[in-house]
């Protein structure tokens, strides 16, 4: 499996990270180095082995489905880069 510049550009887009066109060849090369390393995993016989979902075999705890917290709008907005009138503000999403 080899990654070309188009694939690198697609991955960057999916990850929502802007990568300039002239940086794509180097990025694709790095991906290939890492993927080559990862592909050692193809040597392992994993027939019949379940993918691990939890490293400790413990049942997740349950709790009552009730409100336990809230009413802290100011604290939630305190670190926002742009907060207005009690909301997070972002550039226009729809025309």
């Amino acid at each position: 499996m080899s990654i070309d510049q188009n694939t690198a550009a697609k991955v960057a887009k999916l990850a929502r990270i802007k990568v300039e066109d002239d940086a794509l060849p180097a990025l694709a090369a790095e991906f290939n180095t890492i993927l080559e390393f990862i592909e050692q995993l193809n040597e392992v016989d994993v027939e019949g082995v379940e993918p691990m979902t939890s490293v400790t075999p413990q049942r997740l705890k349950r709790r009552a489905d009730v409100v336990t917290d809230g009413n802290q709008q100011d604290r939630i907005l305190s670190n926002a880069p742009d907060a207005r009138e009690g909301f997070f503000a972002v550039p226009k999403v729809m025309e």
Partner: protein
Amino acid sequence: MSDLNKLGLAEARDALRKGETTSVELTQACLTAIDKADALNAFVHKTPEIALERAAAADARLKQGDAPAMCGLPVGIKDLFCTKGVASQAASNILEGFVPEYESTVSQQLADDGAVMLGKLNMDEFAMGSSNETSTYGNAVSPWRREGSDAQLTPGGSSGGSAAAVAADLCLAATGTDTGGSIRQPAAFTGTVGIKPTYGRCSRWGVVAFASSLDQAGPMTKSVRDAAIMLEAMSGHDPKDSTSADLAVPNFEAMLTGDIRGKKIGIPREYHMEGMPAEIEKLWAEGRDMLKAAGAEIVDISLPHTKYALPAYYVIAPAEASSNLARYDGVRYGNRATLEAGDGITEMYEKTRAQGFGDEVKRRIMVGTYVLSAGFYDAYYNRARRVRSLIKQDFENVFAAGVDAILTPATPSAAFGLGEMSDADPVAMYLLDVFTVTVNLAGLPGIALPAGLDSQGLPLGLQLIGRPWEEGDLLNTAYALEQSTGFVAKPGNWW
């Protein structure tokens, strides 16, 4: 008492309880040491006012006789832990200016016990790195130097600031976190002790997430006894972290008898790596002989899937990171890129993340995005999770055969120079975690402790791996080994 900052936790605790010193005196000694050590770039947000306030409160508590073990002891906190009202930015530019409205459970537990926070410690960005060279604050520098050289060395990573601060006596101990070796590798590079407990022993709540199925917090200290004391204070069930275990936390310190007679110690043959320096092989053999002399039985064991641990890790950890780091979008906290007229929300995301994240973090997010993307999920991500099951099974098999602990080197080399690995490809840096990463994949406790010096006078560490939830027994084996090695070397003060 002089040089109070050079004390360990146990000595300082005993001195406080006997009234031989005060928390304010201990704290002032550390604050003075910190201010003289800017060259190490270990403390990146200093909090002297908070420290002195907590120290005074601790002294009042000590006077009343209400004093848990950590009461009055000055420690450093890795920047990955959110601390209320104090900058917490995971050494990333994208979280510049972020001041949490809440406190991580682990740092809260330490504070509740009366521990004194001196400030926040340098680290690799989002804990991704093995040399503390990916930090937005710049490199943390090891207090150790090669004999006859003034080249700057790495304290290791990602908990590099924690390791440098403890080794240079800027604090009595520090918190670290470990996803693939980020407590144990820096501990080994700096002649300090670091334990990563069983997955689920410490709450992850309020610790900036890197790879949630692998991340664990743990203490970085000057001795095994100190590690036992601080781990107990950091451990315990937390309803806010569904993966934290609802198990009683033992008194780990009380389990340090030094008696390991009859314990079975496994030596995994797959950890003899090609090209490993002779000094590391020698250190490992000496460790084995010491444990034997202390009455343990040494057995050769096999962990056949060891070779595949790093490749599996470099699928699973980036996959989880790409999900966890999706939250840094310039909307709710941290930095937002300056936008141009006409830029929409997609440009805001893409520019914010391009400017906010460093190269290694971007690389891992994108690798993670790729292995999770449609068409590759089974081939990479699910395959890696299957291999992870096999790696865990390897350990289960040897534990079922009666092995109590496993002895390995902590790192494949001593600390290297800052910048020395800058031309290497990313995989060369990943290989530094070859002995530690298996432990995270299997969710086991692992401890690194100093065992000797190399020919250039740099510390080398050994690692012991224990059974799940048996940190007490593991610490006791480490305690016995610590007594045998008699490691006392400290770096000269050049900074």
